[in-house]
């Protein structure tokens, strides 16, 4: 692999952002790679927008990732993908869920909400990234675990060209990280995500 692989995972507090960040970190660790990431704790977590950075590599220094430098973004909520897609370097990959969680401001202002939702594809396209859009809600339900949208996207990630961890390595880490009684559903969610796209190259 290259010296350093940088990625961001974004969404709304409570969507399981730290869980997939953990799974990736565990898998990288098992492979003997170093991990450095940065998380948001405390006040900002509650229903707010959340971004986690993760670097995988051999010699790592700073825990954060500046704008225009990540190789891949995982967005578990589509508006959050739009908020943070600026962290991707040109021609990098954004894996985004179609899921939209309405913030309070939109509950008050219906017009703004409709306009933003209608324009989301157009807006995402303004950033020169490769967008992979996934109906993670439907796939998670198919896997029998509505909370597993994050894992569906992790399955998609396993197919991204250049990502330094294989699907088998991620699945091993996944088994270790999620509660025993939900392992089977999580693995299914992972597979559904993985099969949702063809190898992206």
């Amino acid at each position, binding site marked *: 692999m290259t010296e350093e692989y940088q990625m961001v995972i974004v969404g*709304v*507090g409570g969507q399981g952002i730290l869980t997939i*960040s*953990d799974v990736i*970190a*565990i898998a990288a*660790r098992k492979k003997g790679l*170093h*991990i*450095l*990431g*940065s*998380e*948001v*704790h*405390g*006040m*900002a*977590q*509650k*229903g*707010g*927008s959340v971004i986690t950075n993760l670097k995988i590599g051999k010699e*790592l*220094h*700073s*825990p*954060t*990732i*500046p*704008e*225009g*430098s990540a190789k891949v973004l995982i967005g578990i909520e589509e*508006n*959050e993908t*739009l*908020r943070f897609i*600026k962290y991707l*370097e*040109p021609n990098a990959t954004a894996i985004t869920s179609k899921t939209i969680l*309405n*913030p*309070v*401001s*939109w*509950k*008050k202002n*219906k017009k*703004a*909400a409709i*306009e*933003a939702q209608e*324009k*989301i594809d157009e*807006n995402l396209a*303004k*950033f*020169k990234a490769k967008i992979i859009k996934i109906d993670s809600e439907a796939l998670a339900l198919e896997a029998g675990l*509505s909370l597993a949208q994050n894992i569906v996207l992790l399955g998609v990630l396993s197919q991204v060209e250049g990502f330094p961890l294989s699907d088998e390595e991620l699945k091993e880490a996944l088994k270790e990280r999620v509660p025993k009684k939900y392992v089977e559903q999580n693995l299914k969610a992972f597979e559904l995500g993985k099969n949702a796209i063809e190898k992206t190259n």
Partner: protein
Amino acid sequence: MGKLSDLIENKEKRVLCLGNEAIARGAIEAGVQVFAAYPGTPSSEISAALIAAAPELDFYAEWSTNEKVAMEISYAASISGVRSMTALKHVGLNVAADAYYSFMYMGCKGGFVTVVGDDPHCFSSQNEQDSRWLGVSANFVILEPSNPQEAKDYVKLAFDISEKFEAPILLRSTTRISHARADVQYNEYESNFKEGDLEKTPRFKCLPAIARANHPKLLEKMEKIKEWIFDSGLSIVEDNDGEDYGIITSGISYSYVKDALKTLKRTIPILKLGMISPLDEKSILRFAKNKKNIIFIEEVDPYLEDRISALFIQNGLNPEIHGKCNGITKRYHELDSRLVAEGLIKVIGGELPSLSEIQKAVEETKEFIPFRPPLFCAGCQHRAAFYELSKVVRKQDGIFSSDIGCYSLDPWVTDTIVCMGASIGMANGFARVIKNKPIFALIGDSTFFHTGLPALVNAVYHKANFNLIILDNRMTAMTGFQPNPTEDIPIENVVKGLGVDYIVEFDPYNFEKGKKTIEDALKHEGPTVIIMRKICANEWWRRKRRKGEEIEVFHTNSEVCIACGTCIVQYQCPAISWSLDTNSKDKKYTVIDPAMCTGCSVCSQICPTGAISKVELND
């Protein structure tokens, strides 16, 4: 939090952990015997980890009522000869500083380490205060690690230095180290716990005559430490080749410098300081000698820059200084490797990939990105209490002095939020000058015990006319549901003991009764005390789920709902949203997410058409 077994297992291994967990492990490896702390982001996980580990490893650890008490507990243990530690956030250090300044004069015995978590960028704080200045004003001995591994290793080192020089040591972390996740090498350890005893010596009495003698002794000690650092390995010089430029940095800023230089494909001599007070003058002068330009890279204040520039003048060095003085980095918010690279370019030249296309796209799309502020959780008892309060006294008709905690998120009435305990202190002041409006102080249970008490004593003593609402949710929720004295000490007894005449309690989930409680209190001369008592909904919900108990949730009858928005737009419960098909007026109604609803029932009480009701279990 990571696994407790990883934290305590006495084995060499590499563990994925938070910076704060690495710091806790460092304390365990150093054989900490007494630990006391008050929670505060970004320091809380250090304490949570050590308090969880204490019963397993047989040392003493507690959540104390405030930072000053915690620090005094740790210090007493230290001068009784055992290794002790406390952890706090930057503003918590202000609370404890009264004691700490004098501890420096008195010195310690057993290793005594304080970990402070600074918060550049105010992720979870009321200011960006830079704790490094205490190295000047109080002669603190300060270590500054640059990553989680170093943070762990420095904790062990801090205990050794503390014992070697009988000096309290401050380990300064920042949010990006405390909340970084990395793989960290854990080492084996030996615990050497012992019984404490206090040596009878005048040095522990900070009386004027003794303090007068202790001050020059402290300065002497600082000189000795200064001599010692040079050979300690704490100052690291890298790539010292060339006389044009040199970078002086420390802590997290060092990591940004490394990445910035990598991006710029440049090699510049770097001096990384591991101890930032006292300064390693010998290494600094040796590094700067013959260099034409010295570049300081540090977050927030020009601490290194100002101190070291003075050192250059005193020693006849005259390099050109770059840093905050010529604006290559800003004096506020956090840095990252890009900001540092942009700063360096202004001095050393070079080019970065352009961000103009990305910035253009950001400009074009930003109006579509919704503002998503943190909110009260679904079913939050604070939301109910504040909603009732806002219905009794509108914002413009009252004065609302609030405090630090989850209730800081109130969207309706709050006028002031300053620091721990300030709600009651300031209400005392408002009561002296504002006579035609009701005045409210709003404070949580933990903050009340932390620093609210003395201000209430003042109010009773001086008969200040205001209404104190104590929001007792049975725990310190904001920082991660820590326990506090409200578990065992009934607040109403405390308040009664102080001589407050009018004390009432209410359950905020009863909307009409809650409003009436507040209305009634307003008829009495203050200080009155109104206690809202209800367990944190988040924690209550979690406990129910853990036990596998059914939660009674609510739903909307779409036929009856008139889409007025009371529950969504006004009450702002995150469990409630509009029906999907909102284009058709006939079909617009509210929907309650059964996975989020905690069954608090307040929405059903405020709904003007009675459209919301409990889901019957046999439905």
